[in-house]
């Protein structure tokens, strides 16, 4: 009961999508649309589960006065303030996600700067990592280094400025960078994409047929 019903649900939903692809007519296409909307709804609940779990974990840390519990208080408070303003539509009539609402004010002045700064911070770590890793020790490493060099320089104005005096346009850094992106890079990306897709297709089949059951967990 604990394992058979989930396996049955997985098989039925998976098969419906495959049938709907080959027979795109009622009732299969209607069931497919319905299942896709259900998927979105359940995925939303999964996000809520993640958020609730974050609160439980941090609430527990505060309750036990574990190391760094003060930061857990900040996590809980910042969540409650922003979620409270959004959920109860404080200062907004329709949706809190519309422009000009207090929720969006927090989005633009707290969430957005934090997100972009965290990702911008990675620029420094990527630079220091490349300083250590970028040594042309063998042919493969030299290829990686050269491709990265051309793409980085070819994507900024100074790259074109450095080579603008060359009469042959195909020797300009931006042209070389675009060529690398369009051909050797795309060729390898395609090989990787096809390889990944074949892996996903076989895993999907294993899931639908009930061969792969690790997602059910123990007992």
């Amino acid at each position, binding site marked *: 009961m*604990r394992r058979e*019903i*989930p396996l049955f*649900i*997985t098989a*039925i*939903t*998976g098969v419906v*999508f*495959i049938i709907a692809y080959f027979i795109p007519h009622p009732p299969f296409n209607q069931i497919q649309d319905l*299942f896709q*909307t*259900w*998927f*979105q*709804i*359940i995925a*939303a*609940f*999964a*996000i809520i*589960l*993640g*958020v609730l779990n974050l609160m*439980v974990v941090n609430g527990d840390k505060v309750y036990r006065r574990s190391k760094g519990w003060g930061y857990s208080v*900040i*996590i*809980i408070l*910042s*969540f*409650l303030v922003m*979620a409270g303003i*959004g*959920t109860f539509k404080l200062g907004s009539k329709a*949706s809190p996600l519309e422009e000009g609402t207090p929720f969006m004010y927090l989005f633009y002045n*707290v*969430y957005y*700067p934090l*997100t972009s700064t965290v990702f911008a*911070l990675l*620029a420094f770590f*990527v630079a220091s990592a490349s300083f250590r890793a970028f040594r042309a020790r063998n042919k*493969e490493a030299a*290829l990686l*280094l050269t491709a990265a060099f051309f*793409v980085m320089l070819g994507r900024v104005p100074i790259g074109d400025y450095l080579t603008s005096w060359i009469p042959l346009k195909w020797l300009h850094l931006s042209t070389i960078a675009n060529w690398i992106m369009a*051909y*050797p890079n795309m*060729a390898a990306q*395609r*090989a*990787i*994409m*096809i390889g990944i897709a074949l892996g*996903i*297709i076989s895993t*999907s089949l294993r899931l639908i047929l009930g061969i792969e059951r690790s*997602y*059910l967990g123990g*007992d």
Partner: protein
Amino acid sequence: MSTDIGVWIAAFLTLGILSFLYKDNPFYKVSESIFIGVSAAYWFVYMIYNVIEPNLLGNLQKGEWWYAVAGILGVMMLFRLIPKIGWLSRWAVAFMIGTGAGLNFIVYLQSNVMKQIRGTLAPLNSIGNIMMIVGVITGLIYFFFSAEHKGLLGGAAKVGIWFIMVSFGASFGYTVMARISLLIGRMHFLFSDWLGLLH
């Protein structure tokens, strides 16, 4: 200098995250904790008003009762927080897995296999097109582990790894430039919007 309180908050949080470049410090940890809290809150509210309200509550109000099944499965997902009845969440997980598997089977077969093969099969009238065919075939050979990479297969796999290294280098360069552009954006915000030094 800006007189907008929102810009000041954003500037302090930006500096808080950047302070990690010196070392891990309380100013960074506070900014990081706020980031975690507001991120969770943003997605919580986003899911309520963009998914649950229109797709679940909206359809139920129209009398389409079969959407209640998704609501029930969604609530069952939350049972994971209660260990005694946590196993019930498997039904919702199974639905997600089944939908994902069915959808991925079709989507990946269409877009990542068929379309990519079609895109590769171009006339061999330029160095680029020849390179494309050679790169895709040798790249795939590199990922074929059912036979030992020896002889002709080994040679082809070697060429495949060259293409893959060029691709990794290009992706690395592309990622670095994207991160640098984000950093320039934050610096522009600090020096222009906040301090008013750039015009």
